[in-house]
């Protein structure tokens, strides 16, 4: 035993005497993680969060979250002598007076954008592969919670410097608050400590942004990761992979090196963006005052769909007995997003209710093998894309020689017409892909080599696919539709008949599939050749 090994042994013994750590360390250091690039998307979010904590802490050493008015005396000439809030002035100082300050501000903001992009692509991966099914429903709900909180945290973060663009965003948030029936104006006055903009808002959201929400994030992310750890990660179907095993690499050393390395990659890419691409140049926006506005004012991308919804809303407001309800604000700003995020959070339960599948799943679905789910996902993405584009309609209009009026009407109609169209097209695409898979299994790969038979006939040589590929293309399950009874034994209609009828219909639609190729069919075909 070398000296190093002896010392390490002593340290480990010391810790184990007090914690019993050796047993679970041994078990966890050999834990197996499946390896697929799409399993790294969640890690993009995790590492971005760490980068946000680190860069954000740096910024707090110089940022002054106060709205008291100061006169700018820093080095940026076009703002010298102007009155502005201390929050804005301190952000200018971070950008111009602190070495590395602008870089850290940019890294922090780019990391926030990447964090949200990561969440969305990770959500898409989890959704389209059905990884949210039992036993992972809780993790899905936590994920939707992280998405929602991420949007809020980002909004609060870029509002802290109190510049013209983000101040406008706060004005709009305040208008949504104010529009809430009965309590709206009270909520607004409580949040802002009086009328808009007041002097209390920035200091208050500062605490939410640097303490309360990060703490909630840490807790949620910890539970999210612990569940993944304990339940073990899902894996794609393939040779040797079953519902009862995990095939991959051990935590130490492979996974630690790859995942640890990926942290540095994410940090490096974020730093690269911070080095070469300017983001949030708020010295050009100017300090916030309600009397100013810029053309082309948008929130950060993850709120662009909200902006797009508000822009396309029809101008409906009702006044009954003197009381005003602004449907044109409440529906796009609160009601519709509320419904959407609730439906998103409850989706695992909705799906298992619809197809009656209450079993555990650890093997992922290839999206083509779950056509209804994939098509619904395509619908949601289409809706989000239309609303997101409408959020930037004025900039898109000037860039592509369109009019904002055209964009608005395209969005109003498109947001209703395009998602169902996307559903139909996607479902058909999935079924086509299933058919292509079936053909591949039964007939093999078309090699493109033509052979002329002695009788003059031309045929193309098909190369049979490997056993591994054949298994991959046929190992999926095809659920039978539910056939819940609507009448009891005596022919009398049951009380819950309508629910059962709906479930039957939906599960029948979800069960639409091209039948899998079987070994029997293959053998029959071989007999023919």
């Amino acid at each position, binding site marked *: 035993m070398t000296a190093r090994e002896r010392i390490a042994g002593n340290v480990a013994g010391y810790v184990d005497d007090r914690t019993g750590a050796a047993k679970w360390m041994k078990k966890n250091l050999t834990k197996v993680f499946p*390896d*697929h*690039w*799409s*399993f*790294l*998307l969640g890690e*993009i979010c995790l590492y971005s969060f760490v980068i946000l904590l680190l860069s954000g802490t740096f910024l707090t050493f110089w940022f002054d979250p106060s709205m008291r008015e100061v006169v700018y005396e820093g080095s940026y*000439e*076009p*703002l010298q*002598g*102007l009155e502005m809030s201390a929050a804005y002035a301190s952000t200018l100082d971070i*950008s111009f007076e602190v070495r590395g300050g*602008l870089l850290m501000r940019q890294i922090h903001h*780019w990391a926030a*954008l*990447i964090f949200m*992009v*990561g969440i969305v*692509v990770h959500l898409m991966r989890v959704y389209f592969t059905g990884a949210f099914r039992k036993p992972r429903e809780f993790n899905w709900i936590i994920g939707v919670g992280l998405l929602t909180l991420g949007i809020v945290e980002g909004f609060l973060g870029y509002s802290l410097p109190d510049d*013209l*663009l983000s101040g406008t965003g706060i004005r709009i948030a305040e208008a949504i608050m104010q529009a809430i029936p009965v309590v709206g104006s009270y909520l607004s006055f409580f949040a802002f400590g009086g009328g808009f903009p007041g002097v209390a808002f920035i200091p208050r959201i500062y605490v939410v942004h640097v303490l309360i929400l990060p703490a909630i994030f840490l807790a949620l992310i910890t539970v999210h990761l612990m569940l993944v750890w304990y339940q073990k990660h899902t894996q794609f179907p393939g040779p040797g992979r079953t519902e009862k095993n995990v095939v991959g690499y051990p935590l130490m050393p492979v996974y630690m090196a*790859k995942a640890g*390395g*990926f942290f540095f*990659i*994410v940090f490096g*890419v974020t730093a*690269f*963006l*911070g080095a*070469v*691409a*300017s*983001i*949030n*140049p708020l010295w*050009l*926006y*100017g300090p916030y005052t309600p009397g*100013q506005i*810029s*053309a*082309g004012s*948008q*929130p*950060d*991308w993850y709120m*662009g769909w909200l902006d797009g919804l508000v822009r396309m809303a029809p101008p409906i407001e009702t006044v009954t007995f003197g009381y005003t309800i602004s449907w044109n604000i409440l529906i796009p700003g609160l009601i519709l997003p509320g419904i959407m995020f609730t439906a998103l959070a409850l989706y695992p339960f909705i799906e298992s209710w619809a197809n009656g599948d209450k079993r555990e799943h650890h093997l992922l679905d290839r999206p083509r093998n779950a056509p209804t789910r994939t098509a619904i996902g395509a619908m949601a993405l289409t809706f989000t894309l239309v609303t997101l584009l409408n959020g*930037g*309609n*004025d*900039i898109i*209009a*000037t860039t592509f020689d*369109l*009019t*904002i*009026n055209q964009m608005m009407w395209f969005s109003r109609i498109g947001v209703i017409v395009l998602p169902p169209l996307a559903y139909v097209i996607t479902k058909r695409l999935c079924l086509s892909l299933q058919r292509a898979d079936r053909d591949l299994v039964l007939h093999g790969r078309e090699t493109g080599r033509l052979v002329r038979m002695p009788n003059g006939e031309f045929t193309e040589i098909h190369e049979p696919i490997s056993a591994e590929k054949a298994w991959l293309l046929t190992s999926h399950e095809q659920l039978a539709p539910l056939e819940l009874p609507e009448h009891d034994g005596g022919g009398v209609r049951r009380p819950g008949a309508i629910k059962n009828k709906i479930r039957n219909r939906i599960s029948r639609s979800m069960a639409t599939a091209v039948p899998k190729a079987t070994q029997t069919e293959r053998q029959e075909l071989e007999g023919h050749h």
Partner: protein
Amino acid sequence: MKRLSRLRRHRATGPILLFFALFTIGTTFQVASAVDAEQTTTIAARSAAIDEGREIFLKGCSSCHGLNAEGGEIAPSLIGVGAASVDFQVATGRMPMGDMSMQAMRKTPVYNAEEVYALAMYVASLAPGPEIPTEEMLNYERDGSTAEGGELFRTNCAMCHNFAGQGGALTQGKYAPTVMGVTPRHIYEAMITGPQSMPVFSDKTITPEEKLSMIKWIKAAEAEPQLGGAALGRVGPVTEGLLVWTLGIGLLIGVAVWLAAKAR
């Protein structure tokens, strides 16, 4: 010779030659189309200029603006618009209008400095109107304040032209163009004449000194390099989001695919 044939057949030759060809065409075009924006006005004999101007007007403008500049179905009257309007519209190439689209765009001017001056004198002779500002009136370096100009710009201009003067959308396909690369004289004239959709900014609402401050700020913004890196158009979060969804996640997914792929 053998070396040359070998080089000709190299697989990188095609792309390299293409690059040089495009580069040459691009820079030649740039140089050839550079317009000398600053025009010096000389005080010519006014009546000679007015006569010359009337000639040019009859030939190039009267078909839309009427034989006596009284206007018509498709073009407004020019009586009272002043020399400043003519200088702005014609010297920036907006007039003559190329096609009957929603608004006149800045393009290569048809008339040279002398012809523009003549036209301006002719139209000014029809009725009193805003005059072309003199060099003395445009000394923004001396008489303007950058910081005040920025505040004025953000209060009066940014809602159409964007916080950095990059331009913005109006209704029905109209747009407020970028104010970058515009001469101080033309900026001043635009403010006092209110071309097309732009309102008029009278000297009592924005004083001449304030106008010079705004010009000073615009020129400072134009010359200011973007401190944090590529400016991405200076239009805000839209292009930032586009970058993160293309380059940002593209790089990261690229690395992820490399990470999970089996090494050879």
